[in-house]
């Protein structure tokens, strides 16, 4: 059995303390460092800045979610007047917005609608859409391709500022009293509520602005993948992370402009009443739904494809095996991206003709095929692998479990006859939380653990991370599984009041949300502890074979690599290559039996 130690290519540094400084190295005093970060065009710093911004927004959206769940702890709405909330927001924020321009927030039901919308808008537009691509994608894509940066670094920085601007608009809309349209901004709610107030306009503007940030990132990634691969690296030599991000980036570029024009028309409609979505003037509110979902359904795959991208990396490394069916996994990303554009009608089964509904139902089932291809390939990869249990690999396994539930319940909703009963119930809520949170967020948190040593050069406390995982995993299932049951029993979504029959499910769900909150808190503490007192990370602590681990220091130097890396082995050739840059003796050549399934 061959044991290989600290193998390096000649000339590569063992640690970040070579003659090249790590990208995290401070350039001077406090203000110099701040200015350096704020004006950087380094994709790694921009990725970290995105990560911080997104996690902050995740916190805000999470607080809103906890508030929603807390309200649902009892069958009738808690407060009949929201003076408490009004005073709280009013006093804290009257500095920014004069009281008379704030829309009055009425009784409890309306507060509930606003908090629920706040949760939805923040989580969709500010967290999940940018989550993995903008933070980890930015950081990792050039490293994995062996490039020094993304194709357009200044555009990359611009996208972060545009994201910031969009967030400011969203937060101002919330301060002004919030929006009660739901995150989908359906007309006529969005054209008629809070008449005379600007909150809806500001919120829609925020989503419009955030679209540009998304386009900038997507465009950058597509060009980077096409033009900046390391010498010798062909399309099928790329890590599968890159394929997933690439598929998502294509959707970002091709779908986001449609939401741009939709929100622009919505703004015209609200401000000038041009009539496009207003039936009183001959317009058609259902047209808004078509426009909206023509973007927002593809964007569901902008959310999940990066999660799948992360999964392929983590699963291969968990099993320490060549990924099963590389090309199938790679092409399924493109298939998902392609199909995503022709299934939007399944969001409007009840507001379109029967023939259209049948066609969209059939097309919807098509998406299940490439998704299942991925899941089966991951499971086949795990088969006979030597599975390592770490916090990130637990997250990878959890994704398989939760995404399968989320995906399969999607088939229930795509079936017309069943959907008649299930649409607009908590079944839908549970379904998309199992996909969006059980899929994307779980993959995101797992990926942060996975690449944490690379990003910050520090290890974290494994026990803390695994404790956090179990709290999140159990909390998540406790929160959302009862929602399937109450949805199937007919509990409609978006209601603050319900009959006593649903009480037990709502209570379980709320208790679960507390557990989830505690879990994320544990993760936060683990990360803070790691930054303050974490052990120094090796360049390749997990023994991976992609370029960011084998050829870059932890954390990487400012220009990523000492020399432009040359592609020499596949990203998952664990059976023939011993991972370099790792602890001596930690990883051994695989036994022949490990190579059973390929």
């Amino acid at each position, binding site marked *: 059995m061959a044991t290989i130690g600290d193998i390096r290519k000649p000339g590569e540094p063992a640690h970040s303390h070579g003659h090249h400084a790590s990208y995290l190295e401070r350039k001077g005093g406090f203000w110099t460092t701040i200015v350096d970060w704020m004006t950087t065009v380094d994709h790694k710093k921009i990725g970290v800045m995105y990560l911080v911004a997104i996690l902050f927004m995740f916190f805000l959206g999470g607080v809103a979610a906890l508030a929603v769940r807390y309200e649902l702890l009892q069958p009738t709405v808690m407060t009949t007047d929201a003076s408490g909330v009004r005073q709280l927001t009013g006093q804290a924020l009257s500095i920014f917005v004069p009281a008379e321009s704030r829309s009055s927030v009425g009784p409890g039901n309306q507060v509930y609608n606003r908090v629920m919308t706040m949760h939805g808008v923040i989580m969709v537009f500010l967290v999940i859409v940018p989550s993995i691509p903008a933070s980890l994608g930015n950081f990792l894509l050039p490293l994995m391709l062996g490039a020094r940066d993304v194709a357009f670094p200044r555009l990359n920085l611009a996208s972060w500022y545009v994201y910031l601007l969009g967030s400011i608009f969203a937060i101002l809309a919330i301060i002004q009293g919030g929006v009660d349209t739901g995150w989908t901004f359906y007309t006529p709610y969005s054209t008629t509520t809070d008449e005379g107030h600007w909150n809806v306009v500001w919120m829609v503007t925020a989503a419009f602005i955030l679209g540009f940030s998304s*386009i900038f990132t997507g465009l950058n990634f597509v060009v980077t993948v096409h*033009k*900046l691969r390391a010498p010798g690296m062909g399309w099928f030599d790329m890590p599968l992370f890159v394929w997933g991000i690439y598929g998502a980036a294509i959707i970002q570029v091709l779908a986001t*402009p449609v939401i741009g024009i939709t929100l622009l*028309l919505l703004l015209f409609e609200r401000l000038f009443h041009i009539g496009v979505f207003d039936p009183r003037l001959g317009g058609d509110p259902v047209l808004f739904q078509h426009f909206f979902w023509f973007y927002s359904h593809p964007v569901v795959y902008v959310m999940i494809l990066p999660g799948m991208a992360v999964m392929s990396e983590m699963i291969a490394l968990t099993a320490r095996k060549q990924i099963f069916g590389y090309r199938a996994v790679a092409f399924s990303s493109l298939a998902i991206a392609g199909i995503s554009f022709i299934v939007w009608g399944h969001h409007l089964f009840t507001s379109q003709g029967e023939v259209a509904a049948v066609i969209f139902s059939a097309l919807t089932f098509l998406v299940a095929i490439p998704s299942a291809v991925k899941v089966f390939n991951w499971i086949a990869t795990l088969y006979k692998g030597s599975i390592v249990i770490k916090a990130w690999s637990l997250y990878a396994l959890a994704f398989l479990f939760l995404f399968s539930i989320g995906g399969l319940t999607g088939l229930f909703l795509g079936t017309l006859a069943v959907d008649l009963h299930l649409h607009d119930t908590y079944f839908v809520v549970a379904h998309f939380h199992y996909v969006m949170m059980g899929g994307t967020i779980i993959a995101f948190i797992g990926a942060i653990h996975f690449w944490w040593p690379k990003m910050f050069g520090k290890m974290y406390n494994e026990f803390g991370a695994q404790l956090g995982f179990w709290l999140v995993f159990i909390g998540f299932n406790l929160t959302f599984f009862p929602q399937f049951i109450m949805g199937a029993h007919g509990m409609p979504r978006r209601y603050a009041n319900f009959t006593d029959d649903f009480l037990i499910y709502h209570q379980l769900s709320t208790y679960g949300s507390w557990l989830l909150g505690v879990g994320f808190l544990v993760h936060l503490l683990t990360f803070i502890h790691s930054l303050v007192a974490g052990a120094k990370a090796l360049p390749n602590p997990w023994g991976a074979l992609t370029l960011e681990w084998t050829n870059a220091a932890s954390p990487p130097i400012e220009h990523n690599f000492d020399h432009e890396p040359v592609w020499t082995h596949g990203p998952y050739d664990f059976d023939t290559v011993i991972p370099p840059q790792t602890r001596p003796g930690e990883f051994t050549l695989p036994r022949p039996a490990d190579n059973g399934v390929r």
Partner: protein
Amino acid sequence: MATIDTHNPADHAQGDGHQPDLSLPPHERYHAAHHFRDSNHEFDAVKMGVWLFLSTEVLLFSGMFVAYAIFRMMYPEAFIHGSSLLNWKIGLTNTVVLLLSSYTVAAAVRAAQTGNQKWLQRHIVLTFILGTMFLLIKVIFEYYPKWQEGKLPGQFYSYPYWVSPAEPLWWGVYWGATGIHATHVIGGMGLFLWLLIRARKGHFGPKHYNAVEGVGLYWHIVDIVWIFLFPMLYLIH
């Protein structure tokens, strides 16, 4: 991303250990950004980025085209009557103006490729003037009179001689589509000012004309969108 050697040789002496020859014009001294292998590599990437951006523009306008198609199907009389109130001669004049500007911008790219600095600047200025003409014709002969007569979208509509109650919607589509297009023309003119400033500094030449090429492509898409808007709004009866 693009760097032109400044007049301080020390900056670059550090980077790649090579001293720029300051007697050469800036476009001769151009180095690709550090993450590209050379300036051809950069040019390819920039061009691909611009094409992707153009696809987003097409998709943006496609929303307006879809809205037009649907409402035309729902209210044919309103759209036919509304269209008959537009003067196709003005629309045609503007089409010619934009086509001419497409020629001048293509000629500007050619001038950059051949290193003809004088005609590069002249063609940029000509394109800018043609863009201004387009906007002036639009505002003086179309937007302003229609504003006066109340041919306005939605609730602002006050033109008394309508044949279909959906005509405010037609004007909504008209103002929306042409307004978004005009915004793109204004944006393009800003880009031409930027190109002119850079061209006067000698930034563009045979080895480096990424920006001229990119803005040129953008201007063509603005032109093409109008080529579709013109028959759709003015000619189909």
